[in-house]
């Protein structure tokens, strides 16, 4: 990067079913919290990037970046605001665009936010909006919605590597347990593997509790040049790398249906840029939109060998106190998954970990990874964050 970038403020709404709160109410709340956290005033903001997957379908509202600027009180300041869309990787990408804006020298103080208001629609319409992240012509028209496609990946993984139904359940068990201490999480209750396995099938072998829920929520972070970060806060978090990669939108065109090459490639570039290896990572916030997606994530991020992700989690390697804790926040499964907000929420949670102020805290965390995926893996964003200035 042309110049290093740091995170000086984070904020979010709680995630959940906010029946009485609107889209604009959510992002304003998250944004104000991030600005207060950074001690930044509205007049200092140079640019804004907003991650949002489908306000057009969920609330019949487009042009949401201007709406965000307006309701944040920044339209009168003429602050440029840009919406970023990459299905449920929109948030991760909004963060990346914000970092690049600062790194390029074009802006000094940038707000990255993500927001989604999903619960105004019924499940049928929600599923249709979600299906927009897959290939409408080649997949969705034939019944391949996102759950069905992840089910296909799960079946292939089980068939090829012997991953078990119970190992998938353990992802949900772990993430619910982690979320019990997360005040912003949608589900703070523990679940047992037996309960996960008693819920109705969504797309066999995936059951209701293998799926992240439909949620309302927003998250925001403030990024500035690393060299000025300590002027804002005492404990900035540094962006060591932000990388992104693409893959075919359709699962059937992929090199391997049990691997997300977009994640692999983005991670490879990010580790290279940050000068770290998977073994250096103290924790990761990964994209468990379905339990099997976390199994794939721990493999594709290099924490486990290909085919051993299920075992890695079932044996506790991904638990807090384990080798590489994944989703200490509770992940998408328990935090909730307001599509466009998730990628930013992951950065918020990773920042809390590196500051030592997380609900379920990983001891001595100094390097964190976030992995945000669009749909079934057409887009992946991988960030490496640390608590000290990179050398």
């Amino acid at each position, binding site marked *: 990067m042309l110049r290093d970038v740091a995170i000086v403020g984070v904020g979010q709404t709680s995630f959940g*079913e906010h*029946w*009485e709160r609107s889209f604009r109410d959510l992002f304003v709340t998250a944004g104000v919290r991030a600005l207060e956290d950074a001690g930044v005033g509205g007049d200092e903001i140079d640019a804004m990037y907003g991650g949002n997957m489908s306000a057009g379908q969920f609330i019949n509202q487009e042009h949401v970046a201007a709406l965000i600027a307006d309701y944040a009180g920044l339209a009168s300041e003429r602050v440029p605001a840009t919406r970023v869309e990459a299905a449920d990787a929109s948030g991760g990408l909004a963060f990346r665009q914000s970092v690049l804006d600062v790194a390029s020298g074009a802006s000094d103080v940038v707000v990255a936010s993500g927001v989604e208001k999903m*619960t105004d629609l*019924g*499940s049928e319409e929600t599923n249709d909006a979600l299906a927009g992240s897959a290939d409408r012509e080649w997949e969705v028209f034939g019944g391949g919605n996102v759950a069905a496609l992840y089910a296909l990946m799960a079946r292939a993984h089980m068939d090829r590597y012997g991953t078990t139904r119970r190992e998938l359940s353990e992802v949900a068990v772990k993430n619910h347990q982690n979320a019990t201490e997360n005040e912003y999480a949608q589900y703070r209750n523990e679940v047992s593997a037996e309960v996960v396995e*008693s*819920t*109705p*099938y969504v797309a066999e072998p995936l059951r209701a509790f293998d799926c992240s829920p439909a949620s309302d929520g927003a998250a925001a972070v403030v990024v500035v040049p690393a060299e000025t970060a300590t002027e804002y806060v005492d404990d900035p978090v540094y962006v060591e790398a932000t990388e992104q990669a693409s893959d075919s939108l359709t699962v059937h065109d992929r090199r391997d249906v049990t691997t997300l090459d977009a994640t692999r490639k983005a991670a490879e570039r990010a580790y290279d840029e940050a000068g770290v290896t998977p073994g250096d990572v103290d924790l990761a916030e990964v994209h468990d939109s379905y339990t099997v997606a976390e199994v794939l994530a721990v493999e594709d991020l290099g924490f486990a060998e290909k085919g051993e992700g299920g075992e890695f989690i079932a044996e506790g390697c991904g638990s807090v106190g384990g080798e590489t804790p994944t989703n200490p926040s509770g992940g998408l499964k328990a935090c909730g998954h307001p599509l466009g907000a998730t990628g930013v929420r992951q950065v918020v949670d990773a920042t809390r970990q590196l500051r030592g102020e997380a609900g379920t805290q990983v001891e001595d965390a100094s390097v964190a990874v976030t992995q945000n995926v669009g749909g079934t893996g057409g887009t992946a964003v991988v960030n490496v964050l640390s608590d000290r200035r990179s050398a």
Partner: protein
Amino acid sequence: MGAGIVSYGGYVPRYRIRTEEIARVWGDDADAIKGGLRVESKSVPDEDEDTATISVEAARRALEGASVDGDDIGAIYVGSESHPYAVKPTATIVGAAVGATPLMTAADMEFACKAGTAGVQAALGLVEAGRIDNGMAIGADVSQGAPGDALEYSAAAGGAAFVVGDEDVVAEVEDTVSYTSDTPDFWRREGERYPQHGERFTGKPAYFKHTEGASNELLERLDAEPDDYDHAVFHQPNGKFPARVAESLGFSEKQYATGLLAPEIGNTYSGASLLGLVATLDEAEVGERIFFASFGSGAGSDAFSLVVGDGIEERRTGLCETFEDVEHLDYARYAKHKGKIQEE
């Protein structure tokens, strides 16, 4: 003793369909549905039963051996969301059938599943004002659930009638409170055959918010605690919601078990909470206190505090004994009974 319930009666058609049978047709996992809804079977009306016939049957049972007869009733209100006529009252059919016409007032009521308790409050008001000696309020439905919709597992048939007066009262109404807001959680537009609902929106912001709102307000006004009650009855769209709301308010299973009929008969909509009250009065002893709260989508809840008095033994109806003589239908006969398939 102040005004309250003089007599009562409930009626549930003798046909049932099991959750497994509906799940078999739609390819659902019956155990998962039963775990989610806590409904094992639901009642089904006969081919010629509707809200009018069910209301008449419940009204007749309420008057059987009662201290009042049709002539003594000055008002009849029938609450339902499946009145057979869009224009023309069900209440006049009931009035004629029980001999209450012509010197009486009558009207149909609609407030989703709580129209019956709205009728109880209206009749109670007329009695307390001295306008009438006795009034009858009925909640009855042959409820609709679209084929394949989640509602189909619970939408059932049944009704209950309550005679309200200030003489020969067997359960005094200590107080009643309503909690109402404009909340579109469940609706059926004019001309539509089946209702639509807001899925999870029917839970927390609708059923729970309103039921808890009315219940807590009533407890506060009476300076009462859940422990002060021997029984508690709630609207029961399934077996899960009433248990959950009871526990969140501080009532125990021992208090709500008697009035929880949904696991066996499903959701009888306007009849649901009132049938639960019938089953509870059938078991309650003199001096016992009953907490009772309905819920209607749209949305509102009517909460009542009742004290059982002398004479209750003579008024008991044995409602739950009628559940022993039932016939289980397969989906094909169920579809015929419900008019989902018809002779051309």
